[in-house]
């Protein structure tokens, strides 16, 4: 859709009054857009300023006031010594946990999604449609319905409360989306290409490796970003299947905020919240285009 705003029939015969009205409308439009931008930015702004204030200043000052005296103390506390219950090591070990969960989880689910998507797109067999539908439905289940048996299964496998257990959970429930992403990308590659390669004697893996994989960079980026955001931001699995030393950062953040010991340190809470949000925010700022593509691909199926 182009130039809807400017093109108008009989543009030449417009009077000055109409033109002024148009300019006013334009100003109003920008004003409304700016107000919404402020509304979206406000929480981030408040988090940031609160995290740089001392508790005294928080108690006496206004919510949206800039810090009179900038202090980085809350950040240091959030990083290294805030209490998540009885332990007081800050967010640092939990950020590491989240990384240790996210990196293998993203790698595994992306790799499986790529090879599955390749099969569904290019090596269709009888029953493939049914399999794909079954996989797709798996994306939509509310995870509450698998929570109890998963806890038991992890126990049986000796993975209860461990990081490998969480990696397994995230990989299994990530496959549906990653397969969908890759399948939808690979169906756009002409089948003649595969046929020609087969005639030349190339097999299943060779075609994947030397034809499909080199073409896959954009969809790999989309999938990695999608999965990383999902796993990093996960709370339900983290809180259900972790224990004291293996909690991901979202769980630790929630514990810091809701820990009842001592004085409520709002500035530390806010610093911790920003720390927990930083990796995904960074990904969003650096690769927003791919982030949005993943979001829309994940919602507009097929």
């Amino acid at each position, binding site marked *: *859709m*182009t*130039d*809807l705003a*400017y*093109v108008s*029939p009989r543009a030449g015969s417009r009077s000055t009054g109409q033109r002024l009205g148009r300019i006013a409308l334009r100003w109003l439009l920008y004003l*409304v*857009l700016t107000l919404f*931008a402020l509304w979206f930015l406000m*929480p*981030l702004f*408040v*988090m940031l300023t*609160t995290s740089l204030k001392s508790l005294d200043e*928080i108690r006496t000052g*206004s*919510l949206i006031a800039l810090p009179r005296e900038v202090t980085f103390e809350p950040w240091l506390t959030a990083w290294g010594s805030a209490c998540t219950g009885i332990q007081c090591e800050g967010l640092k070990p939990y950020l590491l946990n989240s990384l240790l969960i996210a990196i293998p989880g993203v790698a595994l689910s992306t790799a*499986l999604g790529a090879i*599955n998507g390749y*099969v569904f797109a290019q090596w269709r067999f009888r029953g493939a449609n049914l*399999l794909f539908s*079954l*996989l*797709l*439905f*798996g994306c*939509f*289940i*509310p995870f*509450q*319905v*698998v929570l*109890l*048996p*998963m806890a038991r*299964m992890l126990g049986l496998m000796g993975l209860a409360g461990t990081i490998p257990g969480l990696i397994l959970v995230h990989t*299994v429930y990530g496959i*549906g989306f990653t397969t969908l992403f890759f399948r939808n990308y690979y169906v756009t590659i002409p089948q003649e290409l595969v046929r020609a390669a087969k005639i030349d004697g190339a*097999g*299943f893996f060779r075609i994947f490796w030397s034809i499909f994989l080199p073409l896959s960079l954009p969809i790999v980026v989309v999938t990695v970003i999608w999965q990383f955001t999902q796993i990093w*931001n996960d*709370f339900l699995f983290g*809180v259900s299947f972790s224990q004291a030393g293996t909690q991901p950062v*979202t769980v630790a953040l*929630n514990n810091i905020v809701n820990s009842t010991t001592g004085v409520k340190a709002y500035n530390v*809470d*806010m610093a911790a*919240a920003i720390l*927990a949000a930083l990796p*995904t*925010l960074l990904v*969003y700022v650096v690769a*927003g285009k791919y*982030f*949005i593509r993943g979001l*829309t691909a994940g*919602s*507009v199926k*097929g």
Partner: protein
Amino acid sequence: MTKWLETQVPKLVLAPSFVAILVFVYGFIGWTAWVSLTRSKLMPRYDFDGFGQYAKLFSTPRWDTAITNLGIYGVLFIAISMALGLLLAILLDQQIRVEGAIRTIYLYPMALSMIVTGTAWKWILNPGLGLEAMVRGWGFEDFTFNWLVDPNMAIYTIVLAGVWQAAGFVMALFLAGLRSVDGEIIKAAQVDGIPHWRIYTAIIIPSMAPVFLSAFIVLAHLAIKSFDLVIALTGGGPGYATDLPATYMYAMAFSRGNLGQAASSAMVMMAVVFAIVVPYLYSELRAKND
């Protein structure tokens, strides 16, 4: 033999994922369904007991609250996010010079964890030092805004934070939809002198029906699964005034040790999700095969 093996390679490659899905999705759903039909308490029991757990569930006031809250939250969250998303998309579609930057600002909440969103809004909405205190500090001494601690209003704070997080995403969906409308039709309408707003209401928006549908599905899905946001923002409180089915299920499973109730509430959640998603997926898959 090797020839046969070669033709089976694609299936063999799929096998691990398929087995995993079969066990971890369908097997697990089966397990939960079965347990929801037993008298399981702290430990699962496998002797069939009929629909007693469901009867108990629907006679529990706390579940009643959770379902009512899901209704309030779901309807408002979906309606406001869609309305706001559409409005923002249309506003941004007017040849805005800094469109990219504005889009980035509107959409960034979607990159945040619900726990972060909840933490931020919990701080902003806390009556003692947050918005309420700020407005009072401006001289409006009687100003009250204590939804967060008011059992009747707390659920609306969840709507507020949820909309804040999702509106930009809906905007992105609608914007993509607006841009994919056939430009020729719009040009023709402009040549005919049809007013700007009529072009939207009569041509563009009606042709975006599929986008509305997918936005609705995604939002409904988000609403039913909402768990983190409630935990971080209100913890289900005050009391259990902001409980949702997801938090009810979690409480039964992990703090009350009532597996039967946890399983039956999870099954009800799944039924609600499937009632919305299955017809949609079915039509999508069929449309693709035709």
